[in-house]
C-alpha cells in the first residue's frame, strides 16, 4: 500500500497524475467507473443497520458527543439569512453551551458565499473554518464560468472551505468527463489569489438522493476523488432524501478503497437529516469500523447539520447533570 498523503497536500496531485490513464478521455473514464464492483444493496443496508445497533454509553458516549460537536459544520443556508443570524450562529459555534465552557467548539460554519465575509469577521481568532457553498448551490444549474466565478468570489472573501455541488444532470446522462472537468476546474478556482499558493479545501456534494442507485453513488465518489476532491459529501440538505447510513457507508468504503489504491486520504461529510445524538453516534461507529480512527477527527469527518448541535448539547447536559434537559436550555436558531 502506498504511503498516505492528505488530499489537499502537494503530493496528492502527483498521485492522481498516476491515475491519469483512467481520466484521459470519456471512454476510459466510463469504462473505469462502470468497472467498479457493483454495490450489494441488501448487504449494504444490513451492514449499516448492524453498525447502528452498538450500545455506546457513559464515558464512551461523553467522548462521542464531544467528538461529534467538534465535527459539526454548523449550517445556515436559508434565503432568509441575515448578517445578524450568521453572527449569532458564529457565536454559537465558538461557544456552543454558554452554561458549560468545557463544550468544544464546532469545526466550521457553513454559509452562502455572500455571507462569508460576515462569518469570517465573527470568527476571527476562533480557529473555526468558514465553509461556503458555491457553484449554483443547491441545484448546480448554471454555466461553468458562473460556477467558477461563484467559487473565486467565495475564496476571495476568505472562505476556508468550498462546498460545491456536481452537475447531476450531466452525471445521470453519462457525461462523466464533464463532471470530472468541472470538479477539476473548481478545485483550481479554490487556489487563493493572494500569492500564498494555498487553497481552500474542496468538498464535493453528490446529492445522493438524486443519484438513484448505490452504484451511482460509488461511481460519483470515485469520480470526485479522481478529480481532486478533498472531501466528499452526501447531500445539500435541500431535497427529500438526505444523508442515510447506507449511502454514507458507500462513501466511506470508496474513501477507504481510494486510499488503498492511491494513498490519498479524502474526508467524508454526511449532511442533512442527522438530527439526534443517537444518529450521530451511529455515524461515528460506522467511520470507526470502516476507516478506523485515522478518520475520527474534524479534519477528516464532518457532520453537515444545524439542529443536531442542540440535541448533542442536551445530551451533554444530561450526562453532566443527570437530568434530562429540554429545548428551553439551548438556543433557538
Amino acid at each position: 500500500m502506498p504511503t498516505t498523503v492528505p488530499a489537499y497536500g502537494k503530493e496528492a496531485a502527483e498521485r492522481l497524475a498516476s491515475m491519469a490513464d483512467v481520466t484521459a478521455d470519456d471512454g476510459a473514464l466510463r469504462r473505469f467507473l462502470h468497472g467498479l464492483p457493483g454495490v450489494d444493496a441488501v448487504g449494504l443496508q444490513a451492514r449499516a443497520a448492524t453498525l447502528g445497533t452498538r450500545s455506546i454509553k457513559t464515558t464512551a458516549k461523553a467522548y462521542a458527543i464531544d467528538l461529534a460537536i467538534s465535527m459539526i459544520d454548523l449550517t445556515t443556508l436559508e434565503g432568509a439569512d441575515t448578517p445578524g443570524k450568521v453572527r449569532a450562529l458564529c457565536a454559537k459555534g465558538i461557544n456552543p453551551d454558554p452554561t458549560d465552557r468545557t463544550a468544544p467548539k464546532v469545526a466550521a460554519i457553513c454559509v452562502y458565499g455572500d455571507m462569508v465575509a460576515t462569518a469570517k469577521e465573527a470568527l476571527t481568532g476562533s480557529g473555526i473554518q468558514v465553509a461556503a457553498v458555491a457553484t449554483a448551490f443547491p441545484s448546480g444549474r448554471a454555466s461553468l464560468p458562473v460556477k467558477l466565478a461563484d467559487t473565486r468570489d467565495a475564496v476571495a472573501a476568505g472562505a476556508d472551505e468550498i462546498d460545491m455541488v456536481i452537475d447531476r444532470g450531466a452525471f445521470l446522462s453519462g457525461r462523466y468527463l464533464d463532471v470530472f472537468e468541472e470538479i477539476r476546474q473548481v478545485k483550481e478556482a479554490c487556489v487563493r489569489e493572494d500569492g500564498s499558493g494555498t487553497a481552500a479545501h474542496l468538498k464535493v456534494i453528490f446529492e445522493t438522493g438524486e443519484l438513484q442507485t448505490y452504484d451511482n453513488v460509488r461511481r460519483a465518489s470515485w469520480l470526485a476523488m479522481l478529480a481532486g476532491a478533498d472531501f466528499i459529501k452526501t447531500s445539500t440538505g435541500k431535497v427529500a432524501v438526505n444523508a442515510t447510513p447506507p449511502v454514507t457507508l458507500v462513501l466511506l468504503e470508496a474513501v477507504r478503497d481510494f486510499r488503498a489504491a492511491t494513498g490519498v486520504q479524502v474526508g467524508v461529510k454526511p449532511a442533512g437529516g442527522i438530527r439526534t445524538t443517537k444518529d450521530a453516534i451511529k455515524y461515528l461507529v460506522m467511520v470507526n469500523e470502516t476507516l478506523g480512527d485515522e478518520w475520527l477527527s474534524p479534519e477528516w469527518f464532518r457532520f453537515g447539520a444545524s439542529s443536531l448541535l442542540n440535541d448533542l448539547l442536551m445530551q451533554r447536559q444530561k450526562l453532566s447533570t443527570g437530568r434530562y434537559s429540554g429545548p428551553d436550555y439551548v438556543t433557538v436558531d
Partner: protein
Amino acid sequence: MAARAACTAWRHTSMSDRNDRLSVLKTYKLFVGGKFPRSESGRVYEVTTATSAAGAAGKGTWLANAPLASRKDARDAVVAARKAFGGWSGATAYNRGQILYRVAEMLEGRRDQFAREVGDAEGLGKSKAAAVVDAAIDRWVWYAGWSDKTAQIAGSANPVAGPYFNLSAPEPTGVVALLAPQDSSFLGLVSVIAPAIVTGNTTVVAAAEGAPLPALSLAEVLATSDLPGGVVNVLSGRTAEIAAPLAAHQDVNAIDLAGADAELATELEKAAADNLKRVLRPQPVDWAADPGTARLLAFLETKTVWHPMGV
C-alpha cells in the same frame, strides 16, 4: 395421525361449545405520542387481580403482563408531550371540549370492558365497578364543559390606576407529569387527566403501579377520540422509577404527585424544585365526590395584559 386427531378434537369442541376456543390474550402496551409501543427496555411485569378482594387471601390471580416502563420511555413520552403542546394549547377551547365529550362517548360504548377491568383491578363487584365506570364517564363530560369556562373563573379584568384595560387570562402550564392515584385505578386516573388536558396542557401519566390495565385500555379510547397524539401519554411500571426522571426533567413544567406516598413525594418535590416545576402535593381525596375546580386551576399560568384604552 396425531395431527388429524387434534384437528378433529378442535372441530368437535368448536362446534359443541364456543367457550372452549383458545382465547386470545391481549398484549397491553404503553401509549406514547399516539402510538402503542412496548417498553424500550423490553421489560414487563405481572398484573394480578386486587389482593384485597374477598377470597383473594392476599394473592391475586394473574391478569396480564403490563409493560415495565423505563426512564427512557419517560423521556420519549416527554418529547411526545412537548411536541403536542403547541397544537393542543393552541386549539380552541370549544374544540378541546368537543374532544373530551368524544372520549366520554367512546367510553360509553366500552362500559362493559372497563367495568370488568376495574372490577378485577380494584376487587369490586359487578354493579360497584359499573358505577365507577359511569362516574368516570360523567367526569369526562363534566370537565369537557369546563373547557370554555375556566377563563371566566381564573381570569379577570383588573381595575388599575391608569387609562388601561388590564386583563388577566389563564394559560396552560405546559407539559405536566401526572402520577395517577394508586387507590383508584380508573376514576382517580380520569380525575387527574381530564382537568390537566382540558385547559390545554399535555401530559405524561404514570398509571397506578398495581392496577395499570384500566389506564392502558383508556389509552385505546383516547387514541380513537380525535385527541391528538402526545397530549396524553400513558406509562405503566414502578411509579418511583418513572417519576424520578420526570420530576428531574428540565422540560417538564409541572408534576401532580397524587400517586406518590409521603416519602417519595418529598424526594420528587426536591428534584422538581431545580427547574421550579409547579408541584401539586398528594392529599387524601374521595375520588367519587364532586371534584371541584382545584385540579382544573392547578396547572394554569396567569398572563396579564395592559392595553391602552384609547380616547
